């Protein structure tokens, strides 16, 4: 197990370097960040030149990358254009998005897996058909439609919730979390259902049933443990996707999280913000993937030796 973990950790290094380099190059291709700083007019050349010097934008890209990475390891992510350190932006943005993601993942796990188990055990019955249809609808409707619709109905028509999020506490994030989770939730349901239905016919389940084990024990210990492997993979990789993909949801519900900061950063071509946030997101992806792999090994001991 230790070797397995170590190998996975070492694999993360080139991925991290490659991913950050890519995002760095992409942000640089977007053009001169200083150009859009002065409103509708052109910045006066002297100020623009000085700003460029201060942000290190007059250096060659490879040099900028090296300096940047060097600073990142000391925890310095640079300064955003409004004079705020990027770390400060992160300190306000990430907790909110983490909470949003937690809510979303909880929905995925609790609702998604439950529905998956229920339908998987009752294939072809009316419940199964109904849930399948529902998931089809959820998957095919874009998030922003679901979001705006819920906001309109729950927020304005029925006044059950505030249409916008103020402080970003858990209670306020339930509806946005559901919206964010909706598509993945549908996938989790379908994945669990298929996986469960497949394993139900396998030999070890038949053996377990033949041994006379109680049905609950067969389902939870034998069936679920194996059937959840693809689901765990999906949810694990989805954590990163949820954090990075919250742009739409955060905009609709006025959540000042990672998605909002990224959107602002891209709009204002603020390379420091964009690169900083994406770097952290890359780390989140990597750690989530690592956790998935480790969980794999726990769920299925055969994988450890592979």
């Amino acid at each position, binding site marked *: 197990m230790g070797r397995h973990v170590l190998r996975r950790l070492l694999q993360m290094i080139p991925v991290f370097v490659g991913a950050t380099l890519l995002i760095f190059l992409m942000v640089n291709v*977007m053009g001169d960040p200083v150009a859009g700083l002065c409103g509708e007019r052109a910045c006066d050349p002297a100020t623009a030149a000085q700003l460029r010097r201060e942000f290190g934008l007059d250096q060659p890209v490879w040099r900028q990358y090296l300096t940047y990475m060097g600073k990142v390891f000391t925890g310095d992510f640079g300064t955003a254009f409004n004079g*705020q350190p990027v770390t400060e932006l992160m300190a*306000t943005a990430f907790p909110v998005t983490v909470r949003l993601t*937690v809510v979303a993942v909880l929905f995925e796990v609790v609702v998604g897996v439950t529905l998956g188990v229920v339908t998987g055990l009752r294939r072809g019955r009316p419940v199964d058909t109904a849930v399948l249809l529902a998931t089809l609808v959820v998957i095919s409707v874009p998030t922003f439609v679901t979001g705006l619709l819920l906001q309109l109905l729950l927020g304005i028509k029925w006044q059950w919730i505030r*249409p*916008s999020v103020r402080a970003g*506490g858990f209670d306020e994030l339930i509806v946005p979390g559901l919206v964010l989770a909706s598509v993945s939730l549908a996938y989790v349901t379908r994945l669990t259902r298929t996986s469960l239905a497949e394993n139900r016919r396998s030999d070890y389940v038949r053996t377990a049933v033949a041994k006379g084990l109680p049905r609950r024990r067969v389902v939870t210990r034998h069936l679920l443990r194996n059937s959840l492997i693809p689901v765990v993979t999906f949810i694990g990789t989805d954590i990163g996707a949820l954090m990075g993909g919250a742009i739409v949801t955060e905009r*609709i519900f*006025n959540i000042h999280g990672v998605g909002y900061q990224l959107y602002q950063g891209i709009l204002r071509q603020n390379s420091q913000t964009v690169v900083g946030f994406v770097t952290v997101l890359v780390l989140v992806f990597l750690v989530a993937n690592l956790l998935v792999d480790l969980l794999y090994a726990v769920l299925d001991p055969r994988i450890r030796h592979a």
Partner: protein
Amino acid sequence: MRRSTHARRVACVVAALVLAATGCAGAGAGGNGGAVLSSSWADPQNPLEPANTNEVQGGKVLDMIFRGLKRYDPKTGKARDWLARSIETRDSRTFTVRLKNGWIFSNGEKVTARSFVDAWNYGASLRNNQKNAYFFGYIDGYDEVHPQSGRQRADTLSGLKVVDDHTFTVRLNQKFSGFPDTLGYAAFAPLPRAFFTDHAAWVRKPVGNGPYTIESYTKGAQMYLKKWDGYPGPDKARNDGVTLLVYTDSNTAYTDLLAGNLDLADDIPAAQLKNVKSDLGERYLNTPAGIIQTLAFPYYDEAWSRPGAEKVRTGLSMAINRRQITDTIFRGTRTPATDWTSPVLGAAGGYKKGLCGRACAYDPGRARELIEEGGGIPGGRLTVTYNADSGSHRQWVDAVCNSINNALGDDRACVGNPVGTFADFRNQLGGHRMTGPFRAGWQMDYPLIQNFLQPLYYTGASSNDGAWSNEEFDRLVDRANAETDPARSVALFQRAEEVVRDHMAAIPLWYQNGNAGYSERLSHVALNPFSVPVYNEIRVG
């Protein structure tokens, strides 16, 4: 047995995650209660310093916490003396500024001549990266403090002299009779000593001399501005305070307004314009602002600067059905332009309805003729470049192109060319990479006809992105600036504007209104000519 411990472990991990997430949350709610109103806001782009704020959101705050030598009347836009007792000149070049007594900053410090001189020197200095530095460009010695290239050679503007506590003089590097009227702009605000001694702390929580003080500021979330009881000015706040709430999207702000969670939204999203009347009725404001949209041309491109091209440009102008576009797309929040300024200037200030004449009237037949006479559209096809990230530029550019295509009877005569972000758009403009007309919006800095013409069409001016150059225009502007009599100065500016018209240097499209909606709790809500709510006049309850 084993199962229960396992479950407990999982629960602990989840709880730890949750605690970690809540533990870091630092968003404190601003103190509400009393007659405090909430208003929509967006994160200012730059640190909140007077000479560094060039967009509406930051300007909104500066307007609440600062008062300058002059103030623009919220209704008429006319510059009136505020902290200034008098601003006198004999030659339109050297101005003597006398201050009123009794003005203080909210931290108790007196506002003196030095508060202004120090602030202006700070704003002009290249070292401080102030984005509005060019506002001080008229003052003598600007070249030394803020050279176009190379190191700065002086720390202070040689044109500024403190005479005594309440008097200072300003010497300009050219005649500019309108100069006193520019002094209402936020960049010219006075600054307290604390700004210079502890700059970092000041930027976290700015201190000014206006009717409000900043009580709390959570960057990116909200700012609570409290009425300053000790404010010595005549325009005291009529409410107890304002909470500015940052919204990620103007649609959400509008939704919140409808749901009763927000008192004032000063940016009605274009998509809601068709509902806004039925949603809000009388509580919807739609008033003229000093903003004009135009189509500018790349004169660095041979094809657009050749003789005869002005006929093509005039023809294009006549091919645009402004009335139809403002009615259908903007639902009356824009007014078809008939000159190159704005109605907020008023007739005395230089707005001249119909100055554009037939060249701005929709006439597809004549448009076709003119474009043909002028040698046709350069390259046979028109591309209109705009940034697609904000506003509803895509809709109107498509409509303008549609109008031109219809007039010319050619489906492919004009196409829009969207650029992803504003920064990239600016970048391409700065690099002189346009091959056809491009969007050129202009929001006035101060209500002067000079501000609508000189920065945009004067040779080499800061916002002359198309690099238009005309000797006659430049000469008329110089003469207008030197003229001490306001009426004669305005008349000369209008003659310069006629030069712009005859050459169709840029096609005027429409004047823009400010829009806002407010809740039933509020009354006396109005927008000033800069489309910013006049917060201190608003009454709650």
